[in-house]
């Protein structure tokens, strides 16, 4: 545990009384410290931010799946699952079906 803290920086933040109270109760309910709970909220949001950035770049065709997964800081297959869950299709529409089928035929020609 001590080792984890070594890689962390201290940030101070101000919260409304009402939010601060909720954090206290939720952390108690989840059996974690308030710091741990706030940290998990931030980490979750940062992860979502990175995923959205990656999806945006992918749908704009600026990057391929490999690069998008790198931006999102997740694995290739995780990124494919996320696209599927969010009903975002792969960039297949530029594919020419005829070109693909002809390529297969040529490749299998003896």
């Amino acid at each position, binding site marked *: 545990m001590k080792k984890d803290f070594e890689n962390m920086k201290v940030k101070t933040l101000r919260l409304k009384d009402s939010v601060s109270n909720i954090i206290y109760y939720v952390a108690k309910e989840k059996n974690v410290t308030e710091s741990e709970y706030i940290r998990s909220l931030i980490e979750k949001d940062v992860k979502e931010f990175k995923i959205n950035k990656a999806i945006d770049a992918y749908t704009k065709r600026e990057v391929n799946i490999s*690069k998008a997964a790198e931006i999102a800081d997740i694995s*290739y*297959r995780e990124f494919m699952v996320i696209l599927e*869950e969010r009903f975002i299709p792969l960039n297949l529409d530029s594919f020419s*079906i005829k*070109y*693909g*089928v002809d390529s297969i035929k040529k490749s299998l020609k003896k």
Partner: protein
Amino acid sequence: MNTKAIAIIDTSFYIHLVKMGLIDIFINLYNVIVCNKVKSEITYFKYNNMYVPLDIEIFDKLVKDKRITIKNPKKISKKLKSEISKDSGELYSIALAQELDCIVFIDNGRPFEYCKKYDVKCANSIELMVYLNSKKLLTKEEITNKLRIIQNSIPIKYLEDCLNILNVVIL
């Protein structure tokens, strides 16, 4: 040494192939080669240690049984590097396909432009099914069922074009 044609495959294509239960038929058609980068994309998994996706298990077995060979391209052209995301599986796969003058299977449209421009044989899993249907190796009903599995990953226009070619309707 068998006389089957060589095919290079990318991560997205492999994952779809296993998902749709087409890996055996594919391995019977081609001598399959995978680049190291694609191998690491396929096998890299960090959800948890309790569950390993089926396609990883299948991949490991196919490599062990020498039904999939791991190989890297000797060099990557500047043109390719400038058009495809660096250090991606697609980059290495296309470079190897050019080097070996064989087909590359990728289930992602972006590198297609490059392949068409430089006359690299290139296809995806759906086009493979269209071909298999033309050779009567896959029925329209089988294709319909398989397409349902990856339906969310296929753009509607592209799916419609495929279904028109096959004369198939998915409700």
